[in-house]
């Protein structure tokens, strides 16, 4: 899976939880889920469960704690995919 494909899948997962559409339109690697996209922190757990379902991976507590921005999330997902 290319970085672009992964990013596009991640965007689809995140979209329903986003409360700041303007920031979502200019999403980049540095975009922070809570501070930029205004995703309710409780919903981050749901984003991670959706990521697990989409990619068929399991994300442990350490991985979850890292997944606060787009690029950090992509790194975690790639790492788990590689370990599959």
């Amino acid at each position, binding site marked *: 899976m290319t970085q672009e494909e992964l990013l596009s899948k991640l965007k689809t997962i995140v979209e*329903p*939880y986003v409360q700041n559409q303007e920031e979502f339109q200019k999403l980049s690697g540095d975009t922070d889920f809570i501070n930029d996209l205004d995703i309710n922190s*409780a*919903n981050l*757990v*749901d984003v991670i*469960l959706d990521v697990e379902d989409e990619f068929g991976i399991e994300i442990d507590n350490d991985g979850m704690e890292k997944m606060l921005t787009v690029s950090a999330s992509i790194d975690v997902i790639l790492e788990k995919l590689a370990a599959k």
Partner: protein
Amino acid sequence: MSRRVVVTGLGVVSPNGTNVSEFKNALQNGVSGIEYIDNLKKLNFSCQIAGKPNYNKDYLNNYFNNIQLRGLNASGLEYGVIAGLDAWKDAGLSLVSKEEEPLWEAGVIFGTGILGVDKFREAIYKVDNNNVRRLGSTTVIQTMASGISAFLGGMIGCGNITTTNSSACSTGTEAILMAYDHITSGKSEIILAGSTSDSGPYIWGGFDAMRILPHKYNDNPTEASRPMSATAAGFVPGSGAGALVIESLESAKKRGATIHAEILGGQVNSGGQRNGGSMTAPNSMAVQKCIQQAIVQAGIHADDIDAINGHLTATTKDPEEIKNWTQALNRSGKEFPYINSLKSLIGHCLAASGSIESVASILQLKENFIFGTINCEILHPEISSLVDRSRIPTKTVYKPLNIVVKASFGFGDVNACIIFKKY
């Protein structure tokens, strides 16, 4: 003199109508909402019928956003939100935008017995499969009892009391009286009051096991709920929600709101599970005191009452309830007020019963009718010895009403009685 309190908004999700106008038509025309439910048969229930509101899932898009709908598996939450937001809209009130301050003078008191039992079942399976990490963020908010008041308070933007009360089958009636007390004491101006009850086998199973539900009407569901009848066979389980916007008269006048009825007062008490009262049966002395104190509190006389909307569940307790009314009011025979039971049409909606039945009581006052109680063509002999047949219509009677009383009695030996007046 305490502040006057009125009802300015109504909402309902009932087995025989999922909005106020459908519900009113169903009341006037004696339309039953009791149906056969195949799942109950599959699960080996003795009573395979129930009252369950029916609507298309798409209907929820009018009330919940996409995030709220994800993983939503709590029927009571659906019913409560629909009824609550409908009542709010009916009162001519709007939702506060995200940027504004909350409405500091507006609150929510919305009761339930248990919330989101289907969601809870889902969670239990995951936990037992060592999969607690997969619960997501929605389990807590859909299964906490106060989930219903929290959802409504957040959707509207309420800044006053936002809570959930619970007192079994008197929950809904109690919620309205709590709102009334809160407003008369000057702590708030507007309260969205009501109650909700989930549908389904996990709610109704315990009652089936207690053998207090009818089991001979699975082929004739609409004939099963027989309050006051000589052949009453137990209560039919129901579900749904009722909601009322309760407001100080000053606030309602200032807004130019339509006033559906006035609340003159009421009383909540308990029989302490003494003198014949128990966990499941009411202490008659407490029931009578509750009614009498409601009358005193409302500043009326027992003879002023035009109609009673009883608790009347269609169990063996109905004759005792009628006796309590005749003694509490000191009225009987032809002098007894009209009395009816909504449970004949929709079953016993448990925690939601008091609020749905209060909505029905107010519609009666406003539109001048007493809906008929079906399935009681032949009255229980103890009832017919106390009250004249003409006082218990089986078909809707159209006539002006001034004062209607609503009472509910619940497990735990708890009682609630409200006096509504035409405004």
